[in-house]
């Protein structure tokens, strides 16, 4: 028996670097997964449908169709996060891939960070594509506040990816994960305020619906694009200064941060790594 071994110094690459590296592989895999392209096509399809709505002006320079499309841009990560993330993580759990990551010394934040990273990247690409291919040729301008648009995509990606991950314990196969995710995904999509304007709801109901995680990113994107305080409804919204718009956006940002905290706890508590049941 050998009891001597050379002294080793182990240099961990660091969590941020590991997340970026895993995101790179997630990107490669996303490109190779046919199902992933379907989830990417969904928001583009809905955005195209949205543009078919009547062109009645809601706020200066933006008609109903454009406002609906902009809200779809804000929840692009809904389809990718709940669809793609739940799909691949369910199949990877069943194939022991997640477990192997864990036994190889890869931490949970890195594993989750990689999938959040790729959802963010493809959500940003889809939003850029929608803005360039559809909005600009129609005379739409770039967002008044690009930073707020970015915040909408980033926060939305985290919220919806965590939500997709939280659903995985309910599914045993990637197919059942798609089914499990589809119902809440559609509810969140139609309740986002983009398809059915929320200002027509009674005020109490509207305030409750405003807590649904798909409403804040959609409204953030609309506000970012128009420069108007559309939080609580686009009809009669007022144009705001840069800081004034951010002040108006704070409650929506707080709601998203609260969802992130809640979902992160749920994933930490209920996420299942092992397909083997005792």
């Amino acid at each position: 028996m050998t009891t001597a071994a050379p002294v080793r110094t182990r240099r961990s690459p660091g969590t941020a670097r590991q997340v970026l590296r895993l995101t790179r592989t997630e990107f490669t895999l996303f490109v190779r997964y046919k199902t992933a392209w379907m989830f990417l096509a969904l928001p583009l399809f809905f955005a195209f449908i949205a543009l078919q709505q009547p062109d009645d002006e809601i706020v200066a320079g933006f008609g109903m169709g454009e406002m609906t499309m902009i809200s779809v841009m804000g929840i692009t990560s809904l389809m990718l996060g709940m669809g793609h993330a739940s799909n691949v993580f369910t199949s990877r759990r069943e194939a022991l891939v997640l477990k192997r990551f864990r036994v190889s010394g890869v931490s949970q934040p890195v594993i989750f960070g990689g999938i959040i990273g790729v959802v963010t990247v493809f959500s940003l690409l889809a939003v850029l594509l929608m803005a360039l291919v559809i909005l600009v040729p129609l005379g739409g301008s770039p967002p008044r506040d690009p930073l707020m648009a970015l915040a909408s995509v980033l926060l939305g990606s985290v919220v919806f990816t965590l939500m997709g991950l939280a659903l995985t314990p309910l599914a045993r196969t990637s197919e059942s994960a798609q089914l499990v995710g589809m119902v809440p995904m559609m509810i969140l999509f139609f309740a986002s305020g983009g398809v059915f304007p929320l200002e027509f709801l009674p005020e109490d109901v509207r305030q409750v619906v405003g807590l649904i995680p798909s409403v804040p990113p959609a409204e953030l994107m609309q506000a970012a694009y128009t420069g108007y305080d559309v939080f609580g409804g686009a009809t009669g919204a007022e144009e705001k200064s840069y800081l004034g718009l951010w002040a108006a956006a704070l409650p929506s940002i707080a709601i998203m941060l609260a969802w992130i905290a809640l979902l992160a706890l749920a994933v930490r508590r209920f996420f299942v790594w092992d397909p083997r049941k005792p």
Partner: protein
Amino acid sequence: MTTTARTAAEATGSGPTGEPAVAVRDLHQRYGDFEAVKGVSFEIHPGELFALLGTNGAGKTTTIETLEGFRRPSSGTVRVFGRDPHGQPSGVRERTNAVLQGSALMEDLSVRESLDLAYDLAADPRPTGEVLELVGLADKAKVLVRQLSGGQKRRLDLALALLTRPEVLYLDEPTTGMDAEGRIDTWRIIQGLKDEGTAVLLTTHYLEEAERLADRLAIMHRGEVGVEGTLEAVLSGWGDRVGFALAEDVRTADLPGLPGAELSVESRGDTLWVTYTVTGGDTELRAQHTVTALLEWASAHGTALRRLQVRGASLEDVFLQVADGAADLVGD
């Protein structure tokens, strides 16, 4: 960037007192009314391979999963490098790795991409080219994992585990699905890891694998360890067998009683087969003493010991005995 510097003693997992890299004490795992593991204890030191054998559902994988940090013990303790591995805390997870019971690969990556990813995520990896050569997959580097055979996937599983230079390695049936050449290659790699000071926990259904590699082993059945010890001790505890076909002119009642030997007679076709199982005493010479006594008896009675055989117990003998629930017949 996080740096974990370790002393020589920490590097080998053994301090001045020779502490084990892995220590399991009276481990119990219960799921409701079902107890999957019932009081298992063992230690694994650096450079040592401990084989955990047993029937399907014996509790081997549950024990490994507890060591891997996926399950908290219902009672008892497990320690890896002196620490509780539950949740894979930093300081433990970088120093351990595993080959899981099934192939755990991303089918849409190539072999090279799989290893490159593991390399970039690891704290102190081996070069991927070295690992590819080691497991014999160098010519498959560009092939997608989904196009590999079952045996090649197991080689890649092993490669991914080797890549992080684990100081403790859990191998859960690592050669299942491999052809004979793959198994022999894998045994050579595992032996090399032992020589480097890696503490290895192996489960396998190939008893020959355990016989070749294990420094110590335990045989589990229904959550309990039936037999545990070095291979030599386990086999010597089960005894040596001296057998022969009973001549037609000898009655079984005429067979001699021999000290330290248990006599059994069974029918094999048209003949009666006599077996003396010799336990205890001088393990080096006890078979010879029994054979000498039998030859003297045969000479004195003018009979012959036809098809005389002498053999030690095989691991399979012990395994089957434990699986039959008769482990208490077998000493350590």
